[in-house]
Protein backbone atom coordinates (compact mmCIF):
# COMPACT_ATOMS: atom_id res chain seq x y z
CA UNK A 1 0.00 0.00 0.00
CA UNK A 2 2.83 2.39 0.87
CA UNK A 3 4.37 1.43 -2.46
CA UNK A 4 1.09 2.28 -4.22
CA UNK A 5 0.96 5.71 -2.58
CA UNK A 6 4.60 6.46 -3.37
CA UNK A 7 4.03 5.35 -6.93
CA UNK A 8 0.95 7.56 -7.15
CA UNK A 9 2.98 10.59 -6.15
CA UNK A 10 5.27 10.03 -9.15
CA UNK A 11 2.29 9.49 -11.44
CA UNK A 12 0.87 12.74 -10.14
CA UNK A 13 4.12 14.65 -10.68
CA UNK A 14 4.39 13.42 -14.23
CA UNK A 15 0.72 14.21 -14.88
CA UNK A 16 0.97 17.84 -13.89
CA UNK A 17 4.21 18.38 -15.78
CA UNK A 18 2.62 17.19 -18.99
CA UNK A 19 0.79 20.29 -20.17
CA UNK A 20 -1.37 18.38 -22.65
CA UNK A 21 -2.73 15.91 -20.12
CA UNK A 22 -3.43 18.57 -17.51
CA UNK A 23 -5.11 20.85 -20.06
CA UNK A 24 -7.34 18.25 -21.67
CA UNK A 25 -8.39 16.80 -18.38
CA UNK A 26 -9.22 20.01 -16.56
CA UNK A 27 -9.82 22.76 -19.07
CA UNK A 28 -11.91 20.86 -21.59
CA UNK A 29 -14.92 19.99 -19.40
CA UNK A 30 -15.05 23.55 -18.05
CA UNK A 31 -14.70 24.99 -21.53
CA UNK A 32 -17.50 22.75 -22.79
CA UNK A 33 -19.64 23.72 -19.83
CA UNK A 34 -19.26 27.41 -20.67
CA UNK A 35 -19.96 26.84 -24.37
CA UNK A 36 -23.00 24.58 -23.92
CA UNK A 37 -24.49 26.77 -21.24
CA UNK A 38 -23.94 29.90 -23.34
CA UNK A 39 -25.69 28.27 -26.31
CA UNK A 40 -28.46 26.32 -24.61
CA UNK A 41 -28.45 27.35 -20.96
CA UNK A 42 -31.76 29.17 -21.12
CA UNK A 43 -33.65 26.01 -22.15
CA UNK A 44 -35.26 23.29 -20.10
CA UNK A 45 -35.43 19.54 -20.35
CA UNK A 46 -37.68 16.89 -18.82
CA UNK A 47 -35.63 14.36 -16.80
CA UNK A 48 -37.24 11.70 -14.67
CA UNK A 49 -40.51 13.61 -14.73
CA UNK A 50 -38.86 16.83 -13.52
CA UNK A 51 -38.27 20.00 -15.49
CA UNK A 52 -34.57 20.84 -15.29
CA UNK A 53 -32.69 23.98 -16.35
CA UNK A 54 -30.11 23.12 -18.97
CA UNK A 55 -27.41 25.03 -17.11
CA UNK A 56 -27.77 22.64 -14.17
CA UNK A 57 -28.10 19.72 -16.56
CA UNK A 58 -24.75 20.58 -18.13
CA UNK A 59 -22.95 20.92 -14.82
CA UNK A 60 -23.84 17.29 -14.08
CA UNK A 61 -23.05 16.22 -17.64
CA UNK A 62 -19.65 17.91 -17.74
CA UNK A 63 -18.68 16.57 -14.32
CA UNK A 64 -19.36 13.08 -15.71
CA UNK A 65 -17.54 13.86 -18.94
CA UNK A 66 -14.52 15.09 -16.98
CA UNK A 67 -14.39 11.95 -14.88
CA UNK A 68 -14.68 9.64 -17.88
CA UNK A 69 -11.90 11.55 -19.66
CA UNK A 70 -9.65 11.48 -16.59
CA UNK A 71 -10.16 7.76 -16.07
CA UNK A 72 -10.94 5.95 -19.30
CA UNK A 73 -9.29 8.17 -21.94
CA UNK A 74 -6.26 9.20 -19.92
CA UNK A 75 -5.42 5.73 -18.72
CA UNK A 76 -5.97 4.00 -22.06
CA UNK A 77 -3.93 6.53 -24.03
CA UNK A 78 -1.08 7.05 -21.59
CA UNK A 79 -0.77 3.34 -20.84
CA UNK A 80 -0.58 2.49 -24.53
CA UNK A 81 2.10 5.13 -24.93
CA UNK A 82 4.00 3.71 -21.97
CA UNK A 83 3.62 0.21 -23.34
CA UNK A 84 4.96 1.22 -26.75
CA UNK A 85 7.90 3.18 -25.40
CA UNK A 86 8.95 0.31 -23.14
CA UNK A 87 8.12 1.92 -19.79
CA UNK A 88 5.77 -0.93 -18.94
CA UNK A 89 8.25 -3.59 -19.95
CA UNK A 90 10.90 -1.97 -17.80
CA UNK A 91 8.52 -1.73 -14.84
CA UNK A 92 7.59 -5.38 -15.36
CA UNK A 93 11.28 -6.25 -14.95
CA UNK A 94 11.40 -4.70 -11.47
CA UNK A 95 10.01 -6.14 -8.23
CA UNK A 96 7.15 -3.59 -8.16
CA UNK A 97 3.93 -5.64 -7.87
CA UNK A 98 1.54 -5.17 -10.78
CA UNK A 99 -1.25 -4.40 -8.31
CA UNK A 100 0.74 -1.46 -6.92
CA UNK A 101 1.37 -0.11 -10.39
CA UNK A 102 -2.27 -0.31 -11.44
CA UNK A 103 -3.50 0.73 -8.03
CA UNK A 104 -1.45 3.91 -8.25
CA UNK A 105 -2.97 4.73 -11.63
CA UNK A 106 -6.52 4.15 -10.34
CA UNK A 107 -5.93 6.16 -7.16
CA UNK A 108 -4.47 9.01 -9.15
CA UNK A 109 -7.35 9.01 -11.63
CA UNK A 110 -9.79 8.99 -8.72
CA UNK A 111 -8.01 11.90 -7.10
CA UNK A 112 -8.05 13.90 -10.32
CA UNK A 113 -11.73 13.02 -10.77
CA UNK A 114 -12.69 14.27 -7.32
CA UNK A 115 -10.87 17.55 -7.89
CA UNK A 116 -12.39 17.85 -11.34
CA UNK A 117 -15.98 17.15 -10.25
CA UNK A 118 -15.61 19.52 -7.31
CA UNK A 119 -14.22 22.19 -9.59
CA UNK A 120 -17.05 21.76 -12.08
CA UNK A 121 -19.67 21.82 -9.34
CA UNK A 122 -18.16 24.92 -7.74
CA UNK A 123 -17.95 26.68 -11.07
CA UNK A 124 -21.54 25.65 -11.88
CA UNK A 125 -22.79 26.92 -8.56
CA UNK A 126 -20.95 30.20 -8.82
CA UNK A 127 -21.70 30.95 -12.47
CA UNK A 128 -25.03 29.23 -13.10
CA UNK A 129 -26.57 28.78 -9.65
CA UNK A 130 -26.57 25.04 -10.20
CA UNK A 131 -27.61 22.78 -7.35
CA UNK A 132 -24.81 20.96 -5.59
CA UNK A 133 -25.33 17.67 -3.72
CA UNK A 134 -25.23 17.64 0.07
CA UNK A 135 -26.15 15.33 2.95
CA UNK A 136 -27.34 11.82 2.07
CA UNK A 137 -27.46 12.77 -1.59
CA UNK A 138 -23.75 13.61 -1.38
CA UNK A 139 -22.96 10.21 0.12
CA UNK A 140 -24.79 8.37 -2.70
CA UNK A 141 -23.14 10.73 -5.18
CA UNK A 142 -19.72 9.89 -3.74
CA UNK A 143 -20.39 6.14 -4.02
CA UNK A 144 -21.29 6.52 -7.69
CA UNK A 145 -18.23 8.70 -8.26
CA UNK A 146 -15.81 6.20 -6.74
CA UNK A 147 -17.38 3.14 -8.41
CA UNK A 148 -17.57 5.04 -11.70
CA UNK A 149 -13.94 6.13 -11.54
CA UNK A 150 -12.77 2.59 -10.76
CA UNK A 151 -14.92 1.18 -13.58
CA UNK A 152 -13.72 3.59 -16.22
CA UNK A 153 -10.12 2.96 -15.14
CA UNK A 154 -10.65 -0.80 -15.48
CA UNK A 155 -12.20 -0.32 -18.92
CA UNK A 156 -9.25 1.90 -19.82
CA UNK A 157 -6.85 -0.93 -18.88
CA UNK A 158 -8.95 -3.43 -20.82
CA UNK A 159 -9.22 -1.43 -24.04
CA UNK A 160 -5.41 -1.25 -24.35
CA UNK A 161 -5.57 -4.94 -25.29
CA UNK A 162 -7.19 -4.06 -28.62
CA UNK A 163 -5.06 -0.96 -29.29
CA UNK A 164 -2.24 -2.10 -31.58
CA UNK A 165 0.07 0.89 -31.05
CA UNK A 166 0.28 4.36 -29.56
CA UNK A 167 -0.77 6.04 -32.82
CA UNK A 168 -4.04 4.16 -32.76
CA UNK A 169 -4.74 4.89 -29.09
CA UNK A 170 -6.57 8.21 -29.37
CA UNK A 171 -8.75 7.21 -32.37
CA UNK A 172 -9.79 3.91 -30.78
CA UNK A 173 -10.46 5.48 -27.41
CA UNK A 174 -12.57 8.29 -28.86
CA UNK A 175 -14.38 6.01 -31.29
CA UNK A 176 -15.36 3.79 -28.39
CA UNK A 177 -16.45 6.50 -25.98
CA UNK A 178 -17.84 9.39 -28.07
CA UNK A 179 -20.96 7.59 -29.39
CA UNK A 180 -21.77 6.51 -25.84
CA UNK A 181 -21.31 10.04 -24.54
CA UNK A 182 -23.83 11.27 -27.14
CA UNK A 183 -26.26 8.41 -26.51
CA UNK A 184 -26.07 9.03 -22.80
CA UNK A 185 -26.96 12.70 -23.07
CA UNK A 186 -23.61 14.18 -22.14
CA UNK A 187 -23.49 16.74 -24.94
CA UNK A 188 -27.06 16.88 -26.21
CA UNK A 189 -29.69 16.68 -23.50
CA UNK A 190 -31.72 13.49 -23.68
CA UNK A 191 -34.99 13.99 -21.91
CA UNK A 192 -37.85 11.59 -21.30
CA UNK A 193 -39.20 12.28 -24.79
CA UNK A 194 -36.10 11.12 -26.70
CA UNK A 195 -36.50 8.16 -29.13
CA UNK A 196 -36.91 4.84 -27.35
CA UNK A 197 -34.03 3.13 -29.19
CA UNK A 198 -31.62 5.71 -27.85
CA UNK A 199 -32.74 5.02 -24.31
CA UNK A 200 -32.51 1.28 -24.87
CA UNK A 201 -29.07 1.32 -26.51
CA UNK A 202 -27.68 3.61 -23.87
CA UNK A 203 -29.07 1.38 -21.12
CA UNK A 204 -26.75 -1.50 -22.13
CA UNK A 205 -23.57 0.49 -21.53
CA UNK A 206 -22.14 1.92 -18.32
CA UNK A 207 -21.98 5.60 -19.33
CA UNK A 208 -25.71 6.32 -19.04
CA UNK A 209 -26.06 4.55 -15.70
CA UNK A 210 -23.09 6.43 -14.37
CA UNK A 211 -24.34 9.79 -15.63
CA UNK A 212 -27.82 9.12 -14.23
CA UNK A 213 -26.26 8.38 -10.86
CA UNK A 214 -24.21 11.58 -10.79
CA UNK A 215 -27.13 13.57 -12.14
CA UNK A 216 -29.31 12.43 -9.28
CA UNK A 217 -26.91 14.27 -7.00
CA UNK A 218 -27.14 17.51 -8.96
CA UNK A 219 -30.73 17.46 -10.18
CA UNK A 220 -32.50 15.83 -7.28
CA UNK A 221 -33.85 13.07 -9.53
CA UNK A 222 -34.24 9.57 -8.12
CA UNK A 223 -31.03 7.69 -7.38
CA UNK A 224 -31.16 4.03 -8.46
CA UNK A 225 -28.76 1.60 -6.81
CA UNK A 226 -29.22 -0.55 -9.89
CA UNK A 227 -27.23 2.08 -11.80
CA UNK A 228 -24.32 1.56 -9.40
CA UNK A 229 -24.59 -2.21 -9.90
CA UNK A 230 -24.55 -2.00 -13.70
CA UNK A 231 -21.52 0.32 -13.61
CA UNK A 232 -19.75 -1.98 -11.15
CA UNK A 233 -20.52 -5.03 -13.32
CA UNK A 234 -18.90 -3.31 -16.29
CA UNK A 235 -15.92 -2.46 -14.09
CA UNK A 236 -15.55 -6.07 -13.01
CA UNK A 237 -15.76 -7.26 -16.61
CA UNK A 238 -13.14 -4.68 -17.59
CA UNK A 239 -10.88 -5.80 -14.77
CA UNK A 240 -11.14 -9.48 -15.74
CA UNK A 241 -10.48 -8.71 -19.40
CA UNK A 242 -7.52 -6.54 -18.41
CA UNK A 243 -6.04 -9.28 -16.22
CA UNK A 244 -6.44 -11.79 -19.05
CA UNK A 245 -5.35 -9.71 -22.03
CA UNK A 246 -3.23 -6.82 -20.75
CA UNK A 247 0.23 -6.70 -22.32
CA UNK A 248 3.33 -5.22 -20.70
CA UNK A 249 5.19 -5.32 -23.97
CA UNK A 250 4.61 -3.56 -27.30
CA UNK A 251 2.21 -5.56 -29.42
CA UNK A 252 4.13 -5.24 -32.68
Amino acid sequence: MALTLTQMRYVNKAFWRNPASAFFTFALPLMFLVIFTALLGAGQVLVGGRVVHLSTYYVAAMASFGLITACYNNIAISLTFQRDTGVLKRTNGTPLPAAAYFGARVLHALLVSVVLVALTAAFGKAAYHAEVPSGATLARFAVMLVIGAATFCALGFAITAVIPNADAAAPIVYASILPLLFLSGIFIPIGDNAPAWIHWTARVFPVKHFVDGLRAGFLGTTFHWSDVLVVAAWGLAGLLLAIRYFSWQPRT
Partner: protein
Amino acid sequence: MVDVISVDTARSAYAVEVRALAKSYGSVPAVVGVDLRIGHGAVVALLGPNGAGKTTTVEILEGYRRRDSGEVAVLGLDPGRQRAQLKPRIGIVLQSTGVDRYLTVAETISMYSGYYPHPRPVDDVIDLVGLTGKRNSRVVRLSGGQQRRLDVAIALAGDPELLFLDEPTTGFDPSARHEAWQVVRNLAELGKTVLLTTHYMDEAQHLADRVAIIAAGRIVAEGTPATLAGRDVARPHVRYRLPAATPPPTDLGGQPTPDGFVELAPRDLTQALHQLTGWAIEHGVTLDDLQIVRPSLEDVYLQLTGDPAAATVDATAPLTPGKPG
Protein backbone atom coordinates in the same frame (compact mmCIF):
# COMPACT_ATOMS: atom_id res chain seq x y z
CA MET B 1 12.32 -32.86 -21.88
CA VAL B 2 14.40 -35.10 -19.66
CA ASP B 3 17.81 -33.99 -18.59
CA VAL B 4 19.87 -36.21 -16.35
CA ILE B 5 22.11 -33.37 -15.27
CA SER B 6 20.09 -31.16 -12.97
CA VAL B 7 21.43 -27.74 -12.11
CA ASP B 8 22.19 -27.47 -8.42
CA THR B 9 20.46 -24.15 -7.90
CA ALA B 10 21.43 -23.69 -4.28
CA ARG B 11 25.18 -23.85 -4.66
CA SER B 12 25.72 -22.73 -8.20
CA ALA B 13 29.27 -21.62 -8.78
CA TYR B 14 28.01 -19.54 -11.69
CA ALA B 15 25.93 -16.40 -11.85
CA VAL B 16 24.33 -17.72 -15.01
CA GLU B 17 24.20 -21.32 -16.11
CA VAL B 18 22.40 -22.34 -19.27
CA ARG B 19 22.20 -25.81 -20.79
CA ALA B 20 20.58 -26.83 -24.06
CA LEU B 21 18.30 -23.81 -24.08
CA ALA B 22 15.79 -23.85 -26.94
CA LYS B 23 13.01 -21.52 -27.98
CA SER B 24 10.89 -21.31 -31.12
CA TYR B 25 8.35 -18.75 -32.23
CA GLY B 26 5.71 -20.85 -33.92
CA SER B 27 7.67 -23.04 -36.27
CA VAL B 28 10.61 -20.63 -36.45
CA PRO B 29 13.45 -21.67 -34.16
CA ALA B 30 15.11 -18.68 -32.48
CA VAL B 31 17.43 -20.49 -30.10
CA VAL B 32 18.38 -24.10 -30.79
CA GLY B 33 20.61 -25.23 -27.96
CA VAL B 34 22.52 -22.51 -26.16
CA ASP B 35 25.00 -23.51 -23.47
CA LEU B 36 26.52 -20.74 -21.43
CA ARG B 37 28.20 -20.31 -18.07
CA ILE B 38 29.02 -16.97 -16.52
CA GLY B 39 31.13 -16.80 -13.39
CA HIS B 40 30.33 -14.34 -10.60
CA GLY B 41 31.86 -10.93 -11.31
CA ALA B 42 32.59 -11.61 -14.96
CA VAL B 43 31.75 -9.32 -17.84
CA VAL B 44 30.57 -11.46 -20.72
CA ALA B 45 29.61 -10.28 -24.18
CA LEU B 46 27.14 -12.20 -26.27
CA LEU B 47 28.17 -11.29 -29.77
CA GLY B 48 26.17 -12.06 -32.86
CA PRO B 49 24.41 -10.68 -35.91
CA ASN B 50 20.81 -9.48 -35.82
CA GLY B 51 18.41 -12.37 -35.56
CA ALA B 52 21.03 -14.73 -34.13
CA GLY B 53 19.07 -15.26 -30.93
CA LYS B 54 20.84 -12.78 -28.61
CA THR B 55 17.78 -10.97 -27.38
CA THR B 56 15.69 -14.13 -27.12
CA THR B 57 18.39 -15.75 -24.98
CA VAL B 58 18.78 -12.71 -22.75
CA GLU B 59 15.04 -12.18 -22.36
CA ILE B 60 14.62 -15.79 -21.26
CA LEU B 61 17.30 -15.22 -18.62
CA GLU B 62 15.56 -12.01 -17.53
CA GLY B 63 12.22 -13.79 -17.22
CA TYR B 64 10.44 -11.89 -20.00
CA ARG B 65 10.09 -14.95 -22.22
CA ARG B 66 9.51 -18.58 -21.45
CA ARG B 67 11.83 -21.23 -22.79
CA ASP B 68 10.61 -24.29 -24.65
CA SER B 69 13.27 -26.56 -23.18
CA GLY B 70 16.66 -26.58 -21.51
CA GLU B 71 18.00 -25.74 -18.09
CA VAL B 72 18.44 -22.18 -16.93
CA ALA B 73 19.74 -20.97 -13.58
CA VAL B 74 20.21 -17.26 -12.99
CA LEU B 75 21.74 -16.55 -9.56
CA GLY B 76 20.61 -20.08 -8.74
CA LEU B 77 16.99 -19.35 -9.66
CA ASP B 78 14.80 -20.44 -12.54
CA PRO B 79 13.67 -17.22 -14.26
CA GLY B 80 10.61 -19.02 -15.63
CA ARG B 81 9.28 -20.26 -12.29
CA GLN B 82 11.02 -18.04 -9.71
CA ARG B 83 10.84 -14.69 -11.45
CA ALA B 84 9.52 -12.83 -8.39
CA GLN B 85 12.52 -13.93 -6.33
CA LEU B 86 14.91 -13.12 -9.13
CA LYS B 87 13.63 -9.61 -9.92
CA PRO B 88 15.10 -7.87 -6.83
CA ARG B 89 18.56 -9.28 -7.59
CA ILE B 90 18.99 -8.37 -11.24
CA GLY B 91 19.14 -5.14 -13.23
CA ILE B 92 17.95 -4.96 -16.79
CA VAL B 93 18.81 -2.50 -19.55
CA LEU B 94 16.50 -3.24 -22.43
CA GLN B 95 17.17 -2.60 -26.07
CA SER B 96 14.30 -0.20 -26.53
CA THR B 97 13.99 2.06 -23.59
CA GLY B 98 11.34 4.21 -22.06
CA VAL B 99 11.01 6.31 -18.97
CA ASP B 100 8.54 8.91 -17.91
CA ARG B 101 9.73 12.00 -19.72
CA TYR B 102 8.44 14.50 -17.21
CA LEU B 103 10.36 13.31 -14.15
CA THR B 104 13.90 14.46 -13.39
CA VAL B 105 16.92 12.16 -13.37
CA ALA B 106 16.99 12.02 -9.57
CA GLU B 107 13.22 11.49 -9.30
CA THR B 108 13.30 8.68 -11.84
CA ILE B 109 16.09 6.85 -10.04
CA SER B 110 14.43 7.37 -6.63
CA MET B 111 11.19 5.98 -8.00
CA TYR B 112 12.85 2.80 -9.22
CA SER B 113 14.97 2.53 -6.05
CA GLY B 114 11.75 2.39 -4.08
CA TYR B 115 10.83 -0.92 -5.73
CA TYR B 116 13.84 -2.75 -4.30
CA PRO B 117 14.54 -4.11 -0.82
CA HIS B 118 18.15 -2.88 -0.64
CA PRO B 119 18.61 -0.01 -3.07
CA ARG B 120 21.86 1.75 -3.75
CA PRO B 121 21.87 5.43 -2.64
CA VAL B 122 20.46 7.55 -5.47
CA ASP B 123 23.35 10.02 -5.63
CA ASP B 124 25.80 7.15 -5.64
CA VAL B 125 24.04 5.72 -8.70
CA ILE B 126 23.96 9.10 -10.42
CA ASP B 127 27.72 9.52 -9.87
CA LEU B 128 28.42 6.03 -11.10
CA VAL B 129 26.84 6.70 -14.49
CA GLY B 130 28.23 10.24 -14.69
CA LEU B 131 24.94 12.14 -14.64
CA THR B 132 25.74 14.30 -11.62
CA GLY B 133 25.47 17.49 -13.67
CA LYS B 134 22.06 16.42 -14.93
CA ARG B 135 20.68 15.40 -11.57
CA ASN B 136 17.72 17.77 -11.69
CA SER B 137 17.14 17.81 -15.42
CA ARG B 138 13.98 16.34 -16.80
CA VAL B 139 14.47 13.15 -18.75
CA VAL B 140 13.04 14.75 -21.88
CA ARG B 141 16.03 17.14 -21.96
CA LEU B 142 18.74 14.46 -21.93
CA SER B 143 20.77 13.52 -25.01
CA GLY B 144 20.60 9.99 -26.39
CA GLY B 145 23.81 8.99 -24.64
CA GLN B 146 22.65 10.49 -21.36
CA GLN B 147 19.31 8.67 -21.60
CA ARG B 148 21.17 5.41 -22.09
CA ARG B 149 23.22 6.16 -19.00
CA LEU B 150 19.98 6.81 -17.16
CA ASP B 151 18.83 3.36 -18.30
CA VAL B 152 21.92 1.88 -16.69
CA ALA B 153 21.30 3.98 -13.59
CA ILE B 154 17.77 2.62 -13.28
CA ALA B 155 19.07 -0.92 -13.68
CA LEU B 156 21.59 -0.17 -10.90
CA ALA B 157 19.07 1.43 -8.57
CA GLY B 158 18.29 -1.81 -6.77
CA ASP B 159 21.99 -2.62 -6.37
CA PRO B 160 21.68 -5.87 -8.35
CA GLU B 161 24.21 -8.69 -8.37
CA LEU B 162 23.76 -9.24 -12.09
CA LEU B 163 23.16 -6.77 -14.88
CA PHE B 164 21.83 -7.43 -18.35
CA LEU B 165 22.73 -4.86 -20.98
CA ASP B 166 21.00 -5.49 -24.30
CA GLU B 167 22.90 -3.64 -27.03
CA PRO B 168 23.84 -0.77 -24.73
CA THR B 169 25.43 1.44 -27.40
CA THR B 170 23.57 0.72 -30.63
CA GLY B 171 23.04 3.96 -32.51
CA PHE B 172 25.59 5.94 -30.50
CA ASP B 173 28.18 8.34 -31.82
CA PRO B 174 31.77 7.42 -30.91
CA SER B 175 32.08 9.72 -27.90
CA ALA B 176 28.78 8.55 -26.43
CA ARG B 177 29.96 4.96 -26.87
CA HIS B 178 33.16 5.64 -25.00
CA GLU B 179 31.20 7.22 -22.18
CA ALA B 180 28.93 4.19 -22.00
CA TRP B 181 31.93 1.88 -21.98
CA GLN B 182 33.36 3.75 -19.01
CA VAL B 183 30.10 3.14 -17.17
CA VAL B 184 30.31 -0.59 -17.87
CA ARG B 185 33.91 -0.63 -16.63
CA ASN B 186 32.72 1.07 -13.43
CA LEU B 187 30.21 -1.74 -12.99
CA ALA B 188 32.93 -4.33 -13.43
CA GLU B 189 34.99 -2.58 -10.76
CA LEU B 190 32.05 -2.86 -8.37
CA GLY B 191 32.22 -6.61 -8.84
CA LYS B 192 28.91 -6.85 -10.68
CA THR B 193 28.36 -9.68 -13.10
CA VAL B 194 27.46 -8.24 -16.48
CA LEU B 195 25.98 -9.97 -19.51
CA LEU B 196 25.91 -7.64 -22.48
CA THR B 197 24.81 -8.28 -26.01
CA THR B 198 26.34 -6.41 -28.88
CA HIS B 199 27.11 -6.66 -32.54
CA TYR B 200 30.17 -4.43 -32.25
CA MET B 201 33.53 -6.23 -32.15
CA ASP B 202 35.37 -3.39 -30.50
CA GLU B 203 32.76 -3.18 -27.78
CA ALA B 204 33.20 -6.85 -26.92
CA GLN B 205 36.97 -6.48 -27.11
CA HIS B 206 37.05 -3.42 -24.83
CA LEU B 207 34.59 -4.52 -22.21
CA ALA B 208 34.34 -8.25 -21.94
CA ASP B 209 36.41 -10.75 -20.00
CA ARG B 210 34.83 -13.41 -22.14
CA VAL B 211 33.02 -13.40 -25.45
CA ALA B 212 30.46 -15.88 -26.67
CA ILE B 213 29.58 -15.77 -30.34
CA ILE B 214 26.03 -16.73 -31.17
CA ALA B 215 24.85 -17.54 -34.67
CA ALA B 216 21.66 -19.13 -35.90
CA GLY B 217 20.51 -19.78 -32.36
CA ARG B 218 23.56 -21.48 -30.90
CA ILE B 219 26.87 -20.52 -29.34
CA VAL B 220 29.54 -21.21 -31.94
CA ALA B 221 32.59 -20.02 -30.02
CA GLU B 222 33.39 -18.94 -26.49
CA GLY B 223 36.56 -17.59 -24.92
CA THR B 224 38.50 -14.48 -23.98
CA PRO B 225 38.58 -11.80 -26.68
CA ALA B 226 42.30 -12.50 -27.24
CA THR B 227 42.05 -16.26 -27.58
CA LEU B 228 38.59 -16.68 -29.07
CA ALA B 229 38.44 -19.50 -31.56
CA GLY B 230 42.19 -19.97 -31.36
CA ARG B 231 43.08 -16.44 -32.48
CA ASP B 232 46.21 -16.48 -30.34
CA VAL B 233 47.53 -19.76 -31.65
CA ALA B 234 46.56 -19.25 -35.26
CA ARG B 235 49.57 -19.10 -37.51
CA PRO B 236 50.50 -15.48 -38.25
CA HIS B 237 50.67 -14.33 -41.84
CA VAL B 238 53.51 -12.36 -43.37
CA ARG B 239 52.50 -9.90 -46.06
CA TYR B 240 54.74 -7.69 -48.15
CA ARG B 241 54.69 -5.78 -51.40
CA LEU B 242 57.47 -5.79 -54.00
CA PRO B 243 58.42 -3.09 -56.48
CA ALA B 244 56.95 -3.66 -59.95
CA ALA B 245 58.52 -6.45 -62.04
CA THR B 246 60.48 -7.90 -59.11
CA PRO B 247 59.89 -11.63 -58.73
CA PRO B 248 59.49 -12.88 -55.15
CA PRO B 249 62.16 -15.12 -53.57
CA THR B 250 61.62 -18.62 -54.86
CA ASP B 251 62.52 -20.55 -51.71
CA LEU B 252 59.98 -18.79 -49.39
CA GLY B 253 56.75 -19.57 -51.19
CA GLY B 254 53.69 -17.40 -50.73
CA GLN B 255 50.71 -16.42 -52.80
CA PRO B 256 49.95 -13.14 -54.52
CA THR B 257 46.83 -11.43 -53.14
CA PRO B 258 44.30 -9.29 -55.04
CA ASP B 259 45.53 -6.13 -53.29
CA GLY B 260 49.07 -6.58 -54.69
CA PHE B 261 50.70 -8.25 -51.70
CA VAL B 262 52.53 -11.51 -51.41
CA GLU B 263 51.22 -13.47 -48.47
CA LEU B 264 52.62 -16.50 -46.69
CA ALA B 265 51.94 -18.41 -43.49
CA PRO B 266 55.33 -19.71 -42.41
CA ARG B 267 55.83 -22.48 -39.91
CA ASP B 268 58.68 -20.55 -38.26
CA LEU B 269 58.03 -16.84 -38.30
CA THR B 270 61.47 -15.71 -37.10
CA GLN B 271 63.25 -17.89 -39.61
CA ALA B 272 61.00 -16.74 -42.44
CA LEU B 273 61.47 -13.04 -41.62
CA HIS B 274 65.21 -13.46 -41.42
CA GLN B 275 65.23 -15.20 -44.77
CA LEU B 276 62.96 -12.60 -46.36
CA THR B 277 64.80 -9.52 -45.13
CA GLY B 278 68.17 -11.15 -45.88
CA TRP B 279 67.04 -11.78 -49.44
CA ALA B 280 65.78 -8.21 -49.76
CA ILE B 281 69.05 -6.65 -48.60
CA GLU B 282 71.08 -8.95 -50.80
CA HIS B 283 69.06 -8.01 -53.86
CA GLY B 284 68.69 -4.36 -52.94
CA VAL B 285 64.88 -4.66 -52.88
CA THR B 286 62.70 -2.40 -50.74
CA LEU B 287 59.97 -4.34 -48.92
CA ASP B 288 57.00 -1.99 -48.84
CA ASP B 289 54.34 -2.48 -46.19
CA LEU B 290 55.85 -5.50 -44.51
CA GLN B 291 53.14 -6.78 -42.16
CA ILE B 292 52.67 -9.60 -39.70
CA VAL B 293 48.96 -10.23 -39.07
CA ARG B 294 46.87 -12.51 -36.93
CA PRO B 295 43.13 -13.04 -37.45
CA SER B 296 41.25 -10.17 -35.83
CA LEU B 297 38.22 -10.75 -33.65
CA GLU B 298 36.26 -9.54 -36.61
CA ASP B 299 37.81 -12.17 -38.92
CA VAL B 300 36.90 -14.85 -36.41
CA TYR B 301 33.42 -13.45 -36.04
CA LEU B 302 32.77 -13.20 -39.75
CA GLN B 303 34.02 -16.69 -40.34
CA LEU B 304 31.83 -18.07 -37.57
CA THR B 305 28.68 -16.15 -38.39
CA GLY B 306 29.10 -15.59 -42.11
CA ASP B 307 27.22 -18.59 -43.43
CA PRO B 308 25.01 -21.25 -41.87
CA ALA B 309 27.63 -23.92 -42.48
CA ALA B 310 30.04 -22.02 -40.27
CA ALA B 311 27.75 -22.68 -37.32
CA THR B 312 29.03 -26.24 -37.26
CA VAL B 313 32.72 -25.31 -37.20
CA ASP B 314 34.59 -26.80 -34.29
CA ALA B 315 35.05 -23.69 -32.21
CA THR B 316 38.20 -24.90 -30.49
CA ALA B 317 40.13 -25.65 -33.66
CA PRO B 318 42.57 -22.94 -34.71
CA LEU B 319 41.34 -21.03 -37.68
CA THR B 320 43.30 -20.77 -40.84
CA PRO B 321 43.21 -17.10 -41.65
CA GLY B 322 43.01 -15.86 -45.19
CA LYS B 323 41.13 -18.94 -46.26
CA PRO B 324 38.27 -17.98 -48.50
CA GLY B 325 34.96 -18.18 -46.66
